[in-house]
């Protein structure tokens, strides 16, 4: 075990994956010499050579599109999009092809590929550097969407993602890259995809959250000394409905906390499933805490936008008084 922050854990995962299989290639804008703008790929080009870890021309659609071609051609590409806001340029490749290739060819051609990108805000960055596109990539099916909230999960989920024969969108919360360190095994291990983690057990309410909101929820629950069960979703799509429903049926109260904006957000999907399958076991309406339904503002206003501990604490009070 070594103390690692999320950046170190991800770097370690990529290192092990490159070592394990010479069909793994890592590429994107500035991932080589520069080691990525967040240093997630630091030192990997020096270690594995420019053939396996390389900088691409500046074109996000091309990064996704060539990854698809490489995967169809027998490689296992792990591509980096510099920021989620720029990843929209690759949306056509991701939804029209990455998501559809397995179905289109009836599994004759499958795409073992991972597209990593930093997501979410809270770190005072320029416009287009703070959004979370999780819902867009989750909606059409065919893409697995993963979002870790701690270094241990980040490493294990990335390794699992790279071992799967599916296209995986791997969302890395920028704010959590260096927020805290955790004991992480140095060897190869997988964290299951499609499986949420119950990170704290409780009886009075269930809080479903993920990514940047996990530490916020944990603090809010601790501050309120609430007897809450906290579920870290980890995989946005496909959703682990089982873990959510069994907890909600136990506690009778459900709250969903996410950083992306409220309207049509993942919280809507989760709330609908709870309503469909557990409504008679609830003793209060499902509550959602999310950012307002508007485009991510400039950093000067972001503290007025992202849900914080106070907002979650107030929501807990309200839900418990229902």
């Amino acid at each position: 075990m070594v103390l690692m922050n999320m950046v170190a854990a991800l770097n370690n995962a990529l290192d092990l994956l490159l070592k394990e299989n010479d069909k793994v290639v890592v590429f994107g804008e500035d991932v080589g010499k520069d080691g990525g703008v967040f240093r997630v790929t630091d030192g990997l080009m020096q270690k594995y050579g420019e053939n396996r870890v390389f900088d691409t021309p500046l074109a996000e659609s091309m990064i996704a599109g060539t990854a698809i071609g490489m995967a169809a051609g027998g490689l296992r590409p792990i591509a980096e999009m510099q920021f989620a806001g720029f990843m929209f340029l690759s949306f056509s490749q991701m939804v029209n092809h990455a998501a559809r290739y397995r179905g289109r060819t009836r599994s004759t051609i499958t795409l073992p590929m991972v597209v990593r990108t930093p997501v979410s805000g809270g770190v005072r960055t320029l416009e287009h550097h703070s959004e979370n596109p999780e819902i867009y990539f989750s909606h059409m099916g065919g893409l697995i969407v993963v979002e870790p909230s701690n270094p241990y999960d980040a490493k294990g989920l990335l390794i699992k993602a790279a071992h799967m024969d599916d296209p995986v969108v791997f969302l890395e919360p920028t704010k959590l890259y260096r927020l805290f360190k955790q004991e992480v095994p140095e060897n190869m291990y997988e964290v299951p995809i499609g499986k949420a983690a119950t990170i704290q057990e409780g009886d009075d309410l269930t809080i479903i959250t993920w990514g940047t909101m996990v530490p916020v929820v944990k603090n809010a629950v601790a501050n309120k000394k609430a007897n809450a069960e906290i579920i870290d979703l980890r995989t946005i799509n496909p959703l682990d409905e089982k873990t959510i429903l069994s907890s909600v049926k136990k506690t009778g109260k459900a709250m969903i906390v996410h950083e992306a904006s409220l309207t049509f957000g993942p919280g809507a999907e989760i709330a609908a499933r709870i309503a469909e399958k557990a409504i008679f076991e609830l003793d209060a309406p499902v509550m959602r805490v999310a950012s307002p339904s508007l485009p991510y503002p400039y950093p000067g206003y972001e503290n007025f936008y992202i849900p914080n501990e106070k907002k979650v604490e107030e929501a807990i009070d309200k839900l418990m008084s229902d």
Partner: protein
Amino acid sequence: MKKAFDGSVNYYQVMDELGNIDQSLFPRDLDDNKILEMYRYMSLARALDAKALSLQRQGRAVTYAPLVGEEATQIGSAMALGKDDYFVPNFRQQGVFLARGFGMDGLFLYFRGYEEGNMIPRNMHALPGAVPVSTQMQHAAGLAFAQKYLKTGASVIGFVGDGGTSEGDFYEALNFAGVTKSPLVAIIENNQWAISMPRSRQTAAQTLAQKAIAAGIPGVQVDGNDVIGVYKVIKDALANAKNGPTLVECITYRMSMHTTADDPTKYRPQEDVDVWKKRDPIARVRAYLAKKNLWNDQKEQALTDQNLRSIDEAVEKAESFKGDPASIFEHVYSYMPDILQEELDAAAASNFWQQQQTQQENGE
């Protein structure tokens, strides 16, 4: 002042409209047997095209993109390809699939609207058709990169239309292949029309081949209705692929509609079409073969009959296919997520699916 850059584009034609050969350009590895093979495939491609169009008009196929007029570009390219090379189509390269040995029943199954028609054997080294214009060029570039990385010695040909050259993905693919020196031959099947938009309004560039210059790679033009010219130019580009990509513009003409969903008389004058009728890609090969006493009416009749027989067999096979709606659920992820299994189970047990099944079986 000094000149910072100087570029130009060459145009090739080996066989003219009358079947005369420019011996100085004639590919040394080409013999009359191979030209006969090209002729047979071009003829089969045109027959398949006519059949698919007729099936669509009868409601037995979905929207169809005809290839008539573009046989030389497709067959010439396919014949130039080595056994291990890869082929990346857009949505109009039925002719290339034929010449690569892909079963016609698979094509007709695709025309009927079933994904099962895309189950191309892996050793055939082809990707399925891509509908969003030019997006497939990125896949071709990535696939070419993989060949270089894996040292397979294989190259990749990727097809795009004239309209597709206006897309960002087209340039991005050339640029990536250029900078990584990947073995890609990007083929523009310039049929002069992008649905209703003529080539002249697609770009102010004098040629489409010159778009290679911006990516720092060679670009050439060839008479796309000259199967031998296309063969030569693609073969040369493939021979050079170990050094990096080439862009080839094949100048041909879309003799029919973009797809069965449009009517070209609405946007293009018949006189234009008439000019290109005289440049027919099949007629000139026949003229060449006839001059060499390699072809006659009897052989033509035998070929026509044989084509129709094999096409009818393929259609019959494709039409006997019964789709399993559960398959749309089974090929989404490498595993079946619980939430999807639940939807599948519910659908399979529903009256909705049973009604659809009954209706389909009754041909409604």
